[in-house]
């Protein structure tokens, strides 16, 4: 093994855990270390056969977590560079990103290939389709022997591949990973991370999070985001532990994900502030989710964590929340508020680990504690630069220091608070959205003459994305057309929450859009929806029937959470609703009301609107 390769230990750790027959990936995917080791070795064989050598790029995009995990680790131990892309990229985006990264081989979901016909025409490199091993079976299906499948897809085709040894000459400076951070179809920007930077990040994470072979990390973040990929399969393989992939989080699936944390006695939960906000709305029977002694802490990453939510989560679930700050440009995390008591300061992102930090003013001078300035970071974990984009690299990286674009203040105890953003970026549910990307895409839509995107505060999402446009003369039905256009160009992850058509955008003397004025205009233009009024009406009736204050109630209120909600007062509540909205609810609907939200839905099914309510 090469002494210079900082990732050289990976192969040995995986081999040791394979010998112990330890589980590697659980949850939605299932993979043990022996299978992992075997598949990595054969995938290396496949890569070699496809002509992928040291430093060559391998583009990976799949919803199959096990396949992405194996491919990433195989590419790393093969000395290649993994380029991990969103499997739900729009066809236009996929073609542009594939062309931009010029891969030596592509491993893409079969569905993505079928959806994107232009892709196979636009790239010359070998294209391998990823498809599940065998059809999923539910219930008693396991009793039926699966039919033999033709191994034309990955990973089934590995059966015919020869295992290959890991690359032993890889160096610390070799690029290991490339992740796209912005740009979509217009000007894609990819962060290049070296093997040395990855190894430096892993060393800090393993130490700081107290990971060992008994750890079980639940991480639901997507693999095309660094926190999903590098704090998922890579971190697990480096620590020799298990990563549990529960699938994407939705309001409906969140309960099942927390049940998985409980059932598998997870030691760490890697999540984002939006999910913590969703957890706050769950009923109390989830309070024991983290009650097992093996549980260490919840890591909140990829977005600002509201101090009140932080305190509430820790108090309610009796679990420590470690708030982390990092960028793709720092591989993953750079500052940590916890798990140690000294850095666990609510409202801050704690202290740097693995990085040096300074805060500078606009003139470039370092400011003292208590003063606001731009957060600068330096360390072995920094990116090498943006892929083939020296201009963009030079704009943020100079003399080994990364300008984060975030405004920060260092407290007296050395902990850092993020107080604002210098860069133009919106963080919605921990996904970074660059307004320029949306503006450019919107302007390309026929009917749009000018566009500007802003972020508005949102309790659940952190920020809402509002796209303000002006219409060309004669353009009608612009909102629907534009939303459809954006769906095809920027993809679902970056779609705005709302499109507002204005007569004109507010411009300053230099011709730039005045964002603060635009925010005021957007607030004035966004009318309250009928749904909000209906919710208020239902809550008012519930408050009167159950003898509570309206402020105590919400769509999630249930008989368990609402004192005064019993079968008799419930009947009064239903009668009040029927009187107020002049409807008669069907018995099926009345019986299905468990939460106030069910009553709202039942009323909406009758075609009732709040405006039609009898006051």
């Amino acid at each position: 093994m090469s002494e210079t390769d900082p990732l050289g230990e990976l192969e040995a750790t995986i081999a040791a855990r394979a010998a112990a027959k330890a589980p590697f990936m659980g949850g939605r995917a299932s993979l043990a270390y022996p299978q992992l080791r075997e598949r990595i070795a054969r995938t290396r064989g496949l890569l070699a056969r496809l002509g992928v050598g040291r430093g060559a790029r391998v583009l990976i995009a799949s919803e199959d977590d096990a396949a992405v995990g194996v491919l990433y680790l195989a590419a790393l131990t093969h000395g290649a560079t993994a380029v991990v892309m969103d499997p739900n990229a729009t066809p236009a985006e996929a073609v542009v990103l594939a062309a931009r990264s010029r891969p030596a081989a592509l491993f893409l979901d079969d569905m993505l290939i079928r959806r994107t016909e232009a892709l196979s025409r636009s790239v010359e490199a070998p294209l391998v389709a990823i498809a599940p091993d065998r059809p999923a079976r539910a219930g008693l299906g396991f009793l039926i022997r699966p039919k033999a499948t033709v191994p034309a897809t990955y990973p089934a085709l590995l059966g015919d591949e020869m295992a290959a040894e890991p690359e032993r000459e890889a160096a610390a400076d070799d690029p290991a990973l490339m992740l796209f951070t912005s740009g979509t179809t217009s000007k894609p920007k990819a962060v290049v991370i070296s093997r040395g930077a990855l190894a430096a990040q892993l060393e800090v994470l393993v130490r700081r999070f107290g990971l060992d072979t008994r750890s079980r990390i639940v991480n639901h973040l997507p693999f095309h985001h660094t926190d999903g990929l590098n704090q998922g399969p890579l971190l697990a393989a480096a620590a020799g532990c298990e990563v549990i992939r529960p699938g994407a989080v939705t309001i409906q699936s969140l309960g099942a994900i927390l049940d998985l944390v409980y059932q598998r006695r997870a030691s760490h939960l890697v999540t984002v502030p939006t999910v913590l906000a969703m957890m706050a709305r769950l009923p109390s029977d989830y309070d024991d989710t983290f009650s097992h002694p093996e549980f260490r802490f919840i890591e909140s990453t990829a977005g600002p964590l509201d101090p009140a939510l932080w305190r509430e989560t820790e108090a309610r679930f009796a679990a420590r929340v470690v708030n982390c700050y990092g960028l793709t440009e720092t591989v993953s995390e750079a500052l940590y508020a916890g798990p140690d008591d000294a850095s666990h300061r609510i409202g801050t992102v704690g202290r740097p680990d693995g990085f040096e930090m300074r805060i500078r003013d606009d003139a470039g001078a370092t400011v003292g504690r208590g003063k606001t300035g731009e957060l600068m970071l330096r360390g072995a974990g920094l990116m090498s630069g943006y892929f083939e984009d020296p201009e963009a690299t030079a704009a943020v990286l100079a003399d080994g220091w990364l300008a984060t674009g975030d405004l920060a203040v260092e407290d007296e105890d050395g902990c850092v608070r993020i107080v604002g953003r210098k860069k133009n970026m919106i963080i919605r549910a921990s996904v970074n959205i660059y307004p320029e990307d949306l503006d450019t895409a919107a302007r390309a839509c026929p009917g749009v003459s000018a566009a500007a995107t802003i972020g508005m505060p949102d309790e659940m999402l952190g920020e809402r994305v509002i796209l303000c446009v002006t219409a060309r003369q004669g353009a009608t039905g612009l909102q629907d057309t534009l939303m459809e256009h954006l769906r095809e160009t920027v993809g679902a992850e970056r779609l705005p929450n709302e499109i507002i058509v204005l007569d004109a955008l507010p411009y300053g003397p230099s011709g730039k859009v005045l964002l603060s004025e635009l925010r005021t205009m957007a607030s004035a233009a966004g009318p309250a929806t009928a749904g909000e009024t209906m919710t208020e009406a239902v809550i008012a009736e519930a408050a009167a029937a159950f003898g509570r204050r309206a402020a105590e109630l919400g769509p999630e209120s249930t008989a368990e959470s609402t004192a005064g909600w019993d079968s008799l007062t419930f009947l009064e509540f239903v009668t009040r609703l029927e009187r107020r909205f002049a409807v008669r609810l069907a018995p099926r609907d009345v019986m299905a009301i468990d939460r106030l939200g069910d009553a709202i839905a039942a009323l909406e099914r009758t075609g009732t609107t709040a405006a039609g309510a009898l006051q």
Partner: protein
Amino acid sequence: MSFVSVSWLGWIAAVTAVFWALQARFRTLFLILATLVFIGWTDPLSLGVLAALTGLTIVATRERAVPGWRAVLCVGAIVAVLAGFKIAVGPIDDAGVADLAMPLGLSYYALRCIHYVIERYTGRIAAGPGLDVVAFLFFIPTIFIGPIHRFPEFRRDLARHRWDEALFSEGVERIIHGYARIVILGNFLIVNLTETLTQALGPDRTAAVTYIAMVSTGLNLYVQFAGHSDIAIGFARLLGFRVMENFDRPYLKPNISAFWRAWHISLTSWARDYVYGSVVALTRSPALGAVTTLVAIGLWHEISLRYLVWGAYHGLAIVVWQQVQVWKRALPAPRSTAVRGALHVLAVLLTLHFVWLGFLLVRQPDPGAMWSVVVTLVSGGW
């Protein structure tokens, strides 16, 4: 089959040991098999009836959205089977906890099936794997004598299932507690004490003897039934499942409505959700809902005139209590803590005696005998 026996303890131990020895993915299947073997071993006919109801439930609810007509037909068929057996079996000698002449566990099993069908129909439960539904219906700790647990909680327990030392030890404790209640408190203390007191009173003091019989019936019924629930809940915990509680200090409640929320909770909450809920959703009449619900609970025990009377006795009491609450709003509330305390004690005693009298009455063979019990209590010798 008695559940207060060494052989049932043996089953509990064997099922628990094999369950945890197996790999996690085989455990659900094993529980179903254990239940099937147990029923097949004790009463093969019961196995056929329960399997038929299971098939009916699963077939009726197999589509994503269950049509109303099919839900009604299915629930109707289940009720018909249950009622048919209840009528065929006829009156039981004692208001015991296990109706052994019936197919094993049918009274509880049928209610679980109806719960599942209605919840699927209203859309509160999404269609799930058939294996989970069968595991729920054939859950060995609760299949024979309740509690009538619910599918969503059971499915969540399956999703959260893990070895939990604390839960296991709670299970052991609960089973010991249950057996102690039944054997020491019920079969030994209450029975012997009643006998001693009755003999000491002599045959002339008819009212006092009847009163002792009423207290003894009330107390013993509670310790027996709560004890059996303890064993079932404890057994479930040994297997890593949390099953709902069935009693919440019912004899300390200050009114009849509160009593019915604390007595045989799994049955009363079932009846509140599916009988009261349906009647009220259709008629908007809480009074009719209360009477229908309690009559249904009565007839669930046994289809007979005495249980009809017993159900109506409780249903009407709830209607009266609800009306009293309306009148009470017009009266000033007592300010003194002592007065409030005394009124509370009186209310508890009144509720308790009302309930105990009901239990004594329902043990009489017909309304005539019921009436003579009341007459004895009022005019007999003390």
